[in-house]
């Protein structure tokens, strides 16, 4: 187990800069997720930690030691790939034993350790089979067993759940987290799936266009996004233009054309000076009410329902408020508002987070 540190990492491919000045501290034993859309540089970062790519600039430290010049096969990492990458010509047991051969593990111990790893991923019976005979989910478990049996310093997971179908993905998510908790290995997980990131991580690193946008716990990045990109990437958000008016005790008051004055708690308006700003409001924090409902303590404005996207348990509305379109995701009480209905859109000021505007 080791910490991982990226110091001013830059990676260029020709004229294209895939990673700009990445600085990241991954503490020992943490489960850290690199989250972002495809092409944001998350996989490039992972491959540099792995030693499959060399950084153009900057330093990578594993366990406090600079590893830039250490080739991948001497870094003692466990990597799980998106497409399993099992050795098709070796049995499951041979696959799992592969890394032990290069680690001076006595022959007598190998079988026991392989079996223990297979038990950890709950597939103790399949050692004699070839990977092709297993399902996708089973193959991915074997790939995980192969990566952890060598007791790696860091476990790197490159979108390991993306190739699985939806139900299996959720099972594997729980399973993966259980195993990581049990062995406590430092884990770097790459995904473009925000729900995976929110469910599994100790810390999420949100990336966009080669830059790290925000580093924080799942709650932090979800509730107080540091940028418009983060707000939109993690769930559905409304961005409301605003102008910071006054800072007062415990809050910052903003003037918004759409909703009038909104006072956001100071903790959720950090980094906003005077001038233009943006308020981020999660779609599920915007509630639609019957016109004329009691809106005491709420910020409210009349709106029109434009589109109704029925999802069973919840419904997602697109509403029009003057010349703005906003989204609201509400639990269904009795029946959803019909298209074209006039409603009152309301939210609590403390659910807003403020960002500096441009």
């Amino acid at each position: 187990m080791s910490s991982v540190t990226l110091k001013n990492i830059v990676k260029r491919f020709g004229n294209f800069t895939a990673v700009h000045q990445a600085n990241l501290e991954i503490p020992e034993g943490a489960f850290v997720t690199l989250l972002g859309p495809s092409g944001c540089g998350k996989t490039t970062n992972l491959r540099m930690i792995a030693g499959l790519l060399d950084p153009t600039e900057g330093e990578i430290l594993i366990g406090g030691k600079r590893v830039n010049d250490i080739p991948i096969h001497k870094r003692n990492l466990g990597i799980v790939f998106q497409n399993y990458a099992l050795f098709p010509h070796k049995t499951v047991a041979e696959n799992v034993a592969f890394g032990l051969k290069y680690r001076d593990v006595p022959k007598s111990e190998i079988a026991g350790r392989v079996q223990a790893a297979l038990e950890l991923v709950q597939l103790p019976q399949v050692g004699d089979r070839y990977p092709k005979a297993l399902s996708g989910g089973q193959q991915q478990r074997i790939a995980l067993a192969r990566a952890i049996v060598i007791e790696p310093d860091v476990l790197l997971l490159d979108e390991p759940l993306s190739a699985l179908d939806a139900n299996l993905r959720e099972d594997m998510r729980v399973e993966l987290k259980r195993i990581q908790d049990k062995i406590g290995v430092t884990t770097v997980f790459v995904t473009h799936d925000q729900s995976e990131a929110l469910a599994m991580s100790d810390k999420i690193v949100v990336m966009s266009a080669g830059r790290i946008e925000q580093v924080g716990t799942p709650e932090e990045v979800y509730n107080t996004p540091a940028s418009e990109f983060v707000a939109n990437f993690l769930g559905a958000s409304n961005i409301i233009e605003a102008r910071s008016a006054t800072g007062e005790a415990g809050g910052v008051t903003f003037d918004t054309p759409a909703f009038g004055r909104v006072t956001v708690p100071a903790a959720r308006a950090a980094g906003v000076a005077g001038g233009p700003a943006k308020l981020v409001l999660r779609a599920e924090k915007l509630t639609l009410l019957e016109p004329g409902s009691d809106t005491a303590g709420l910020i409210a404005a009349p709106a029109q329902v434009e589109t109704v996207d029925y999802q069973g348990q919840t419904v997602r509305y697109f509403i029009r408020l003057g010349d703005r379109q906003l989204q609201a995701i509400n639990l269904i009480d009795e029946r959803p508002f019909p298209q074209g209905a006039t409603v009152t859109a309301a939210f609590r000021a403390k659910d807003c987070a403020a960002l500096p505007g441009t």
Partner: protein
Amino acid sequence: MGWQLIRGWAVLVYLFMFLPVAVVVLLSFNASEFGSFPMSGFSFRWFVELAQNDAILRAFRTSIGLGLMTAVISTTLGVLASLALVRYRVPGANAISTLLIAPILVPEVVLAVALLLFLNFLGINKSFGLLLFGHVIFTLPFVILVVQARLVSIRRDVEEAAMSLGASPIQTFFQVTLPLMLPAVLAGGLFAFTISFDDITGTLFWKPGGVETVPTQIFAMLRNSISPEINALGTVMIVMTVGLPLLGAAIARRISRKSGA
């Protein structure tokens, strides 16, 4: 009706192609002194004579030795070239690839004369080494085509996984890459062997005096007279050049079935 005609035509085409071969095989078992119909009896006599003919035996040894060496050298070079072209970013990879494949496209006579003239120009005499060199040149494209096709289908992340587990690049090659492309390597080697074993055009140009391969030996024998021995020799050649690749294909299929690749 139309289909019947096409079917009949196809049968005729196949007859035209394979009847002469069948006749050679059939006549090789003819007991008569003359290699022609009618057959006067069934006998292995010509095969026995073949086995006692020193010139032919020498030619056989030469051909097999030449074929094996060609196969080993071509396969080794072909695997290395394919690895470089598929796995690494080589400047001008496309041009190199085309150049390596080119010997298939250039008529063999042209290639044969060109190599000969070139070596004359350099003042190098014909030798067995030159013959081997020539054979390697025109069997290499086949090996590269077969091995490259296979290598492209081997996922890079399998090799990356091996390295991440502690295998050096060389260990990764022998533990993962080579076993996965073994069927193609064997097929390439067999191609190289049979093409070399069969070849006459290039061989006629490149062989030094006194060295005969089986095809050039047959050619030389035909110039004097048509001995029934030639039929027997032809039969042996057919068995070797058809049977070996079939055997190789069967082995390759077994290997890939076992590995499930």
